[in-house]
Each structure stands twice: as structure tokens, then as C-alpha cells.
């Protein structure tokens, strides 16, 4: 056995160029497989940590996924609103610790505008219960202050103090703009890797203010009267949704039932974790497709190895005949080739992991900064180790094919060495 290992090692060293190419091809495919697995894991992680610390999301009655999509992911629109009175009533429930009202419906160059209150900056949590932090500036104070998400500021190149005009509706090329009331950037949030990055935040009163002269979705200057904004009561009449934090988690289901049965208007409350899981179940197909593709990349890496080894085998018939003449048994020759492919695969996996981890070590800060994707530079998880083991077994078993060919050769050639 030691001899076989020694022979494999020296024979490979003798063919080091080919061996190196095989190892590289396996390394690249393994790095890709693991990378996809890591990104997949990271994406799921950051997806499920889009919102944290919130016990209930409340909105007009529709579907839980839809409510999650428009309130947290800022995708799609609400079918109906929640009246201010209902919000006040539920928010003042004795079980509620805090609440964040959301008023959606306007946009700025494709980015959603969210009307909310200071509670948003205090209580909103994402990831592992991380609070929102400001990279520059402060929360909105004046009526026409706006706080930008990290991506909005970066992509649109806004600085503190810049003027921003908000468009009515949510299209990226809306023609009806609230030009009469430009906003001033008062703060920019740090990147979170969540939809917060793609949101402009203003106060609820600001949302009311810019809609003063709007009647049934059309801008009619002067139709809202001539009273200056400062003197008006800008109390909103309705909001889109709101988040609730409870004093005790135990009360969650109780309050959820209470909201579902709310008499004044049809409302629904969803648990963010449950809705997120439901949503992930729907988009999980893409995730599996990604894994499938990288699986095929590994397969093609193994095929490369197989091709190279089979091509080289004919030139090694002499080597095999010599081994056989000194007493090497055909099964030992099969073993020789299986160990060889196993070793090549193992080295490929090792190099692949080295590639991936050094790549990650270099790229992680950039990934987090640009995409808010938080991958951990941790040791491979059990699932990844299982994948690697699968690759190793498949690679080693690949050796059976040239091994069988060699077995046939050594039986047929016998002592007659063919060149």
C-alpha cells in the first residue's frame, strides 16, 4: 500500500504539468461550488435578517407575503390603507412597547419614499438585531428633511444638504413631481444590506404636506387652500402599514388575533419570520438552480480529469506492463489509478478552498460595503463539508473508469509491452 502511494506520488510528479492542470480545473469548480453555497447561505441569512426585532407587521387585509413585500421589501403596493385612528388605537394597546408607522406611495428616481416617525430610527432592527446607524447627518427635523438609504446616496451621488424632488407614484420616470416642495438631505444611513438602503425616509407630516394640493391623484395648484404649511394640521388621516414591538413575545399571537378580528376596519397582522419563510419558499427555486449549476461545473471538472487521464493512459500502458511484470496485480493497478484520481481530487479541493477563502478574505469588506451581503469567513459548515465529501467520493470513483481500462490493458497486453 505504501508502495502504491509512493508510485502514485512519483508518477504524478513525473506528469506534474498535466496533474497541475487537473488540480486547477477541479480547484476552480470546487471554489465555484463552495462560493455559490456561501453566497446562497449568505443571501438566505441576509434575506431572513431583513427585519428583526419586530413582532408584528400590520396592514390592510390582503396576503401575508404581499404585506411583507410592500411594507418591508418596498415591492408592489398596498391594496388598502390603515386609518390613523385604528393605528392609534392598536399602538396604544397595553401590550405594545413601540410602533413604527409606514406611509408609502411616493418615489424618487425609482427609489421608494417612506413616511415614518423618529421611532423608525430608534426601534427598527435588522440582521442580528442591529439598529440603524447614520454614516452622516441626523434624522429629519424640519418638515422638508429627508434621510437617505446608503444605496440611494451612493447611486444618485447625494451629499448632505442636497435638494431632492419627490415624485408622485412609484415609477422611476414619473411625470408628476412634488416640485413645489423640494426636500433637503439631513442624514445618510450606513449600509445595511436590506431594502432600507434603497429607501428615502421623510416624516409622516411631510407626506401630508406634499399632497396638500393633490385631489384624487392629480395636482391642482391652490386646490388645498392658501394656508401656509406651517400653520396647517398635518396629522395624517391614514397610513400604509405599521410595525409593532411587544413588551412580551408571549402576547404576540394574542395581539395578532385581536388585530385580525379588529371591528373598525379589516386588518391583518403577520409574524415577520413566518412571512419571510413563506416568501423564501417561493424564491428558493432560483437558489436551487444556482446550486444545480455549480454542481454541473464540478461535474465538468471531473470530466476534464477523466478525459486527461484516459488520454494519458495509452501512453502509460508501458508503465503498467512494467509494474505487472514485477508482480503488480491487476487489482493493484486499478487501485493505483483510483488513488491517483482521489489524490488529484483532494488536492483540487484543497486548492479550491484556498482560492475561495483567500478570495473571500480579500472581497468580504467590499461585498459588505457595496452589496450589504454579509458572508462569514467561518470554517466550512456541515452542509459544505458534505458537498466536499461528495466531490471527493465522485472524483475518486472517477478513477474506476481509467482503472478498468488499465485493468483490461494489463490483462490483454500481458508481458508484451506495446508502445
Amino acid at each position, binding site marked *: 500500500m505504501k508502495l502504491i502511494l509512493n508510485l502514485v506520488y512519483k508518477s504524478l510528479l513525473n506528469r506534474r504539468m498535466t496533474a497541475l492542470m487537473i488540480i486547477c480545473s477541479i480547484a476552480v469548480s470546487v471554489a465555484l461550488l463552495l462560493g455559490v453555497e456561501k453566497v446562497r447561505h449568505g443571501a438566505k441569512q441576509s434575506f431572513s435578517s431583513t427585519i428583526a426585532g419586530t413582532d408584528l407587521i400590520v396592514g390592510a387585509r390582503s396576503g401575508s407575503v404581499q404585506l411583507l413585500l410592500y411594507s418591508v421589501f418596498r415591492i408592489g403596493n398596498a391594496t388598502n390603507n390603515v386609518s390613523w385612528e385604528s393605528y392609534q388605537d392598536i399602538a396604544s394597546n397595553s401590550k405594545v412597547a413601540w410602533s413604527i408607522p409606514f406611509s408609502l406611495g411616493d418615489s424618487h428616481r425609482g427609489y421608494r419614499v417612506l413616511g415614518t416617525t423618529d421611532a423608525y430610527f430608534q426601534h427598527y432592527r435588522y440582521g442580528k438585531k442591529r439598529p440603524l446607524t447614520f454614516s452622516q447627518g441626523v434624522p429629519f427635523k424640519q418638515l422638508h428633511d429627508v434621510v437617505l438609504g446608503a444605496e440611494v446616496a451612493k447611486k444618485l451621488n447625494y451629499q448632505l444638504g442636497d435638494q431632492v424632488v419627490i415624485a408622485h407614484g412609484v415609477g422611476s420616470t414619473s411625470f408628476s413631481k412634488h416640485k413645489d416642495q423640494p426636500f433637503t438631505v439631513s442624514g445618510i444611513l450606513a449600509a445595511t444590506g436590506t431594502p432600507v438602503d434603497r429607501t428615502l425616509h421623510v416624516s409622516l407630516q411631510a407626506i401630508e404636506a406634499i399632497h396638500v394640493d393633490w385631489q384624487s391623484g392629480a395636482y391642482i395648484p391652490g386646490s388645498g387652500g392658501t394656508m401656509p404649511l406651517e400653520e396647517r394640521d398635518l396629522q395624517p388621516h391614514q397610513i400604509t402599514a405599521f410595525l409593532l414591538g411587544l413588551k412580551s413575545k408571549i402576547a404576540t399571537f394574542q395581539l395578532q388575533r385581536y388585530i385580525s378580528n379588529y371591528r373598525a376596519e379589516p386588518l391583518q397582522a403577520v409574524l415577520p419570520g413566518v412571512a419571510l419563510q413563506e416568501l423564501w419558499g417561493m424564491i428558493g427555486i432560483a437558489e436551487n438552480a444556482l446550486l444545480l449549476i455549480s454542481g454541473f461545473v464540478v461535474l465538468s471538472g471531473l470530466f476534464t480529469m477523466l478525459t486527461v487521464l484516459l488520454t494519458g493512459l495509452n501512453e502509460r500502458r508501458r*508503465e503498467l506492463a*512494467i509494474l505487472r*511484470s514485477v*508482480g503488480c*496485480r491487476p*487489482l493493484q493497478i486499478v487501485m493505483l489509478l483510483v488513488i491517483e484520481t482521489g489524490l488529484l481530487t483532494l488536492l483540487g479541493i484543497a486548492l479550491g478552498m484556498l482560492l475561495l477563502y483567500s478570495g473571500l478574505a480579500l472581497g468580504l469588506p467590499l461585498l459588505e460595503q457595496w452589496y450589504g451581503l454579509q458572508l462569514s469567513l467561518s470554517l466550512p459548515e456541515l452542509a459544505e463539508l458534505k458537498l466536499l465529501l461528495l466531490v471527493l467520493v465522485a472524483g475518486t470513483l472517477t478513477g474506476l473508469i481509467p482503472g478498468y481500462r488499465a485493468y483490461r490493458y494489463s490483462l490483454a497486453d*500481458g*508481458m508484451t509491452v506495446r508502445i
Partner: protein
Amino acid sequence: MSSLIELQQLKFYWRPDTPVLDIDQLQIEAGEKLFLHGPSGCGKSTLLNLMAGIHQPVTGRIVVDGCDLSELSAAARDRFRADHIGLIFQQFNLLPYLSVQENVLLPCHFSALRREQACLHYGTAEAAASALLASLGLAALIDKPVTDLSIGQQQRVAAARALIGNPRIIIADEPTSSLDSDNRAGFIKLLIEECDQHGITLLFVSHDRALTKHFTRVVDLQQLNRAGGRG
């Protein structure tokens, strides 16, 4: 009844309508230096493969050293070959990625018996290899890669490998055909000397009749083989 190799009523073919070998009887005594010749295609390679236990005869018996090869399993024949038979080919006998010494030591790794016998005489298998290489005039090359050697030197290394651990028989299949005539005579002399010294029977196959003078007995396979030979 003390023949080292005994062939009886031996028939071999791949397809029944084209017999390759048909030998009534051949006996080789222990210690003989047999020269087996015949034109290419007369069945030399097949006969060697049969005697080395690679192929099985279709009918008939091959008894080598009292052991009927046709009764052994494939694995047992492999072990038998490793223990008792040294082989030298026409050329390219050596594994290019091993050193001279490692090439010579190969049989000792596959056969415990060969290793034992090498150690019996020289203490260690490595010492046996050194001694053999020295007596073949290769002492200076022991740690060289085999790719640095001339063809004549390579053939002598192959001879050392066949000799190590004292097998009963050495089968040499045209080992001198790639050598020039000076080297050829020198190689055969050395090989026969070593075989004599260790009591090894030599079966030397060639189509070059000029070499017959070195041997104790000459057999013409074309006359022996009633099938006429196809392989």
C-alpha cells in the same frame, strides 16, 4: 522428474479456427541457459505469456517448478510470477520516475519471498540492489534518474531487477535487440554469469541466431510449434 519447466500437449488460441500455439512437449531443466528463437509471429510472445502465467492454455499443462499454472487462480499466478520469475523486455524496462535503485527494488515490494531472499544474502534489499548493480558495472549510477542512462545501461538495470531476490527463472524477451553488437555480447555474458552464480534458469528469446553460442541449449520455436503460429 525434475524439470523446472514442463509443457505438455499445450494448445493456445484466441479463436478455435486460428490456433496460435500447439506444442507437444517441452522440458527445461533447472540451471539451463536456453536460447529460444524463431521469426516474429511464430508465437514467442504467447509462449512467454503462458510460461509467466499471464495467459492460460486452452488445453494442456504448464508445470513450472512443480506447480501446475493452469490450476492456479489469476491472483495465485500473479503471486507465483512475482516470486519466481524475473522478466526483461526488449527496451524501456524501467519506470522513468523512479531512480535506478528504486527500479531494481520493485520486485522486493511485490514479493515477500524475493525480499526475504535478497535480505538472506545481503542483509537488506537495498544492499542486494547495490551489490547486483556493482557486479553489473553500474555502481556509480545507483541514485541517478533512469532517464540519464544509455540504453545499454538501462538494460543492465533491468537485468539487475530481474535478478534481485533470486527468482527461479529469468525470461528475457529480445533484451539485446536495441543494443549494438559489442554491448550485446557483454550484456549476455554478464547475464549468464549472474544466472550461473545464483543458480537461476535463463530463458532467452531472440530472432538473432548469432547469439546461440553463449547458450547451453537452442530451441527453434518454429519447429516446436505445430500450429505455425499467428501471434
